[in-house]
């Protein structure tokens, strides 16, 4: 199904308007914010995984020229409230600076303020902290045991969350199924590592009672959280949303950084800035993502039909509750993937350890879950000697079965999974691909085909919060758009969050242009600060095409309705006869009778006597959007409508592994992608390509690895390996469009596309390649060194 013809600007290959300024180096990033008298922060960090802070000697540092202040955790804790975690765990407080005890290597213990960052760094070295080393725990399974060392003594346990959901007749379905299979899958601690680290500049104006904040931020309720922590009314916090964010995909949370510099600017009276260096970012910033262990059991029959699944997910959240425990909740909205599994038991366990605190990462826990599901499907096929694509087809929800409600209570909006698979296989013959794999095997190589079918829940409404913590009763996650036509007729639209590269200005312009039938480039899009904004969440949960696009669509329709009403009144005709087209309104019965855009602007702005009675003068409209399908709390048995839309992706890849070195190589990469109506093809393509590259990293290279002493080994890009152009192959994307019935244009989300299936496809390809050696690996990242050793060992064992 093609969108051509249905839309004028939507789905056409238009330029991404933000790209102009980025390409010429004229973005406005937080490091570009240059206020007079700004002072700079560097951090003193704890070198041990767990230590009591006995004393902090600031005297040498304070005596250095250019040094203004050394702040410790005790002073900050006295003046501010702990950061919001969303959990009901009052004995696990999280603060910007450690108070009495530091709980991971790299945790911030003190902050030094100086004239320059270099001076602040030099002075940070002179802050003398006396520590008493404490016992620590790094492994989640150990930490979950009763006898474990405690990360937070007062909490009485390391378990932050242990919740079991049972949806449907799991025990009966297991008992009734002739075949069972169990699998353990590990997802290593990885993340998104944007090129720009986190940065924030804060400036307090005591004469206006305003705290100005510029930040590289992607955090819902950022201004609320600042106000709460600093005990300020939120109307005293002015967050500037017109700061370009140099990449995020979840990790730019920055609340501890922000509370720290906000306190300092209020305490010291000049603007204060903290821009992390890469080491601060990787050790103690918000850089770490999920580290998860899955135990999956499935019950199925001889035809490969999977009836029931039990999944336990154990998350190593690190030393404090960031967004991590909630990342176990989000996958509940797609817990069975694209399959018709009748019943599910899901146990979500989040455990504290002495590692860096985890934050949100692209997909919010969905990609690890998809690996667990997709590895299991492959093993089911293997156990039965069936083809893995055939097993998927048999279990998948069929097009005519939508809307389809899964056992955990979420209704999937739409999909046509079988057709997407057909299109991919029409593009690349499966038989030819298998023949190529076998030819490569014949040449002595290890070769495997990798398949993954994955869902991207999109339109984020954060219902996992109420699911995980019943004290939270939030059932909306708004986004909004305002449109004003000025007295000379130009159009300005506003959006009310930052963007981290998703092209939201293009989105807003395109949607408004589509509705008003005017060139989108005529629509100016701006970002007012938080004190001039309407309620808006933030660009998380793959939601902005749906939510900001929806808000822009509704606002534009309100404007169109107003213009039409003004014209009908001025033409002296009934409203039904007034037809809006291309910025003009004409009389259906006498099309030559019309009011131009300029006429309508003239009436609205200056000729109140020509306006319909009781209509507001001017042309200003706004819309605050509720999440489609949202608005209901979870049921008592933990069923919830999570996200309104589900995008679909089907990966088909061919990989080889060097039989001597263990080096993996992706030979062919095909992806079928269906995210409903595409608003801007360039943006969706960029998301998908980047998502696949990110997924290749998570599957093969990236890991925040720790040694046995609790020291982070991957503190720089020398050790945290990112895939480069050598490792990322050419990717062919095969498009399909199944519009969503829940959105204004049929669009779904695509901010996580590619990433949600690539790691699963790669893990399946490698296991297919290893199958002739009768070995298997389910620990991601699948490192070259491990792979090489496993292959060598397997060959050794094979020798007579």
């Amino acid at each position, binding site marked *: 199904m093609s969108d051509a013809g249905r839309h004028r600007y939507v789905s056409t290959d238009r330029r991404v308007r933000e790209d102009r300024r980025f390409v010429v180096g004229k973005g406005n990033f937080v490091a570009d914010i240059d206020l007079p008298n700004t002072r700079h922060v560097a951090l003193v960090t704890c*070198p041990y995984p767990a230590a009591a802070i006995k004393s902090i000697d600031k005297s040498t540092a304070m005596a250095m020229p250019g040094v203004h202040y050394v702040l410790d955790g005790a002073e900050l804790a006295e003046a501010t409230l702990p950061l919001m975690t969303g959990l009901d765990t009052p004995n696990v407080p999280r603060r910007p600076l450690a108070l009495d005890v530091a709980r991971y290597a790299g945790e911030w213990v003190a902050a030094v303020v100086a004239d320059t960052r270099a001076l602040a760094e030099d002075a940070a070295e002179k802050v003398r902290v006396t520590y008493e080393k404490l016992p620590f725990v790094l492994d989640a399974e150990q930490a979950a045991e009763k006898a474990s060392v405690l990360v937070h003594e007062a909490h009485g346990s390391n378990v932050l969350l242990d919740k079991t959901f049972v949806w449907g007749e799991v025990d009966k379905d297991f008992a009734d199924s002739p075949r069972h299979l169990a699998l353990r899958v590990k997802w290593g601690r990885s993340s998104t590592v944007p090129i720009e680290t986190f940065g924030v500049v804060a400036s307090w104006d005591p004469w206006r009672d305003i705290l100005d904040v510029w930040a590289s931020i992607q955090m819902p309720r950022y201004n609320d959280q600042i106000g709460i922590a600093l005990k300020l009314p939120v109307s005293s916090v002015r967050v500037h949303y017109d700061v370009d964010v140099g990449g995020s995909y979840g990790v730019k949370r920055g609340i501890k950084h922000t509370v720290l510099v906000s306190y300092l600017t209020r305490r010291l009276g000049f603007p204060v800035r903290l821009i992390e260096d890469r*080491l601060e970012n990787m050790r103690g910033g918000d850089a770490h993502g999920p580290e998860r262990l899955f135990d999956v059991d499935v019950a199925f029959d001889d035809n490969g039909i999977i009836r029931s699944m039990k999944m336990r997910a154990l998350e190593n959240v690190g030393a404090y509750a960031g967004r991590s425990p909630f990342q176990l909740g989000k996958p509940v909205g797609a817990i069975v993937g694209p399959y018709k599994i009748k019943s599910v038991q899901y146990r979500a366990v989040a455990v504290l350890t002495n590692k860096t605190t985890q934050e949100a990462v692209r997909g919010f826990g969905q990609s690890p879950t998809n690996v667990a599901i997709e590895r299991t499907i492959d093993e089911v096929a293997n156990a039965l000697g069936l083809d893995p694509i055939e097993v998927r087809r048999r279990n998948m929800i069929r097009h005519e079965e939508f809307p389809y409600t899964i056992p955990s209570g979420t209704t999937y909006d739409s999909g046509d999974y079988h057709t997407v698979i057909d299109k991919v296989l029409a593009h690349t013959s499966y038989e030819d691909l298998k023949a190529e794999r076998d030819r490569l095997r014949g040449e002595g190589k290890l070769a495997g085909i990798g398949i993954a079918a994955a869902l991207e829940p999109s339109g984020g409404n954060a219902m996992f919060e109420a699911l995980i913590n019943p004290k939270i009763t939030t059932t909306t996650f708004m986004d909004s758009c305002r449109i004003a036509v000025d007295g000379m007729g130009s159009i300005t639209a506003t959006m009310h969050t930052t963007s981290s590269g998703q092209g939201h200005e293009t989105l807003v312009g395109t949607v408004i242009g589509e509705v008003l039938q005017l060139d989108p480039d005529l629509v100016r899009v701006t970002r007012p600060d938080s004190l001039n904004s309407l309620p808006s969440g933030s660009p998380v949960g793959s939601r902005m095409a749906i939510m900001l696009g929806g808000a822009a669509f509704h606002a534009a329709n309100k404007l169109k309705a107003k213009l039409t009403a003004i014209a009908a009144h001025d033409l002296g005709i009934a409203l039904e006869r007034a037809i809006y087209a291309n910025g003009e309104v004409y009389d259906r019965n006498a099309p030559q009778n019309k009011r131009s855009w300029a006429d309508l602007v003239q009436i609205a702005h200056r000729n109140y006597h020509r306006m319909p009675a009781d209509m507001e003068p001017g042309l200003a409209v706004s819309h605050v959007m509720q999440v489609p399908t949202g608005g209901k709390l979870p049921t008592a048995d933990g069923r919830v409508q999570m996200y309104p839309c589900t995008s679909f992706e089907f990966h088909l890849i061919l990989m080889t592994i060097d039989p001597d070195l263990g080096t993996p190589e992706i030979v062919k990469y095909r992806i079928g992608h269906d995210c409903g109506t595409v608003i801007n093809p360039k943006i969706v393509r960029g998301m998908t390509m980047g998502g696949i590259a990110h997924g290749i990293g998570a599957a093969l290279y990236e890991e925040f690895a720790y*040694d046995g*002493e609790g020291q982070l*080994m991957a*503190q720089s890009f020398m050790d945290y390996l990112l895939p480069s152009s050598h490792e990322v192959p050419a990717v062919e994307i095969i498009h399909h469009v199944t519009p969503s019935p829940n959105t204004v244009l049929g669009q779904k989300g695509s901010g996580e596309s590619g990433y949600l299936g690539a790691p699963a496809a790669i893990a399946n390809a490698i296991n297919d390649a290893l199958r002739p050696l009768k070995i298997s690996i389910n620990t991601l990242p699948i490192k070259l060194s491990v792979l090489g050793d496993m292959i060598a060992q397997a060959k050794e064992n094979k020798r007579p």
Partner: protein
Amino acid sequence: MKLDIAGEEAFDVPIETLWRALNDPAVLKKCIPGCKDMIDEGGDRFKLLLNLKVTSVGGSFEGAISLSDKMPPAQCKVAVSGEGTLGQGSGSATFALEPQASGTLMRYSGEGEIGGLVAGVGQRILKGVSKYLIGQFFTALRREVTALSPAST
């Protein structure tokens, strides 16, 4: 991260000369790479100020060194700990001296633990760096003991 160190070094001087040198703060100060100062705090404990630079990585450290389990002139245990710009380290090693036909053989072995930036950023080069620093120490020590030795005068 953990770091094992072990090795042996032959010296052309009598065991007593070597023992004396190893217990002389003035000599050690000259031999410990990057040592800016060594302050005697009594009871075989010293405060140590170091300024180390290896390839592009450099920084200042403050530490403590203590000698224990002494069995003159044959054996001694050295414990070192320090922290600074680049992280922290601690370790201990045992030195055993054995008279030879001509001179003395020293055997040493120990274990160190290193954390902070050095551990992460420098993990691959740490073994090489520690070897290099130990080499520097012995080169200097050999020079010092030769100067002390009556045979050389």
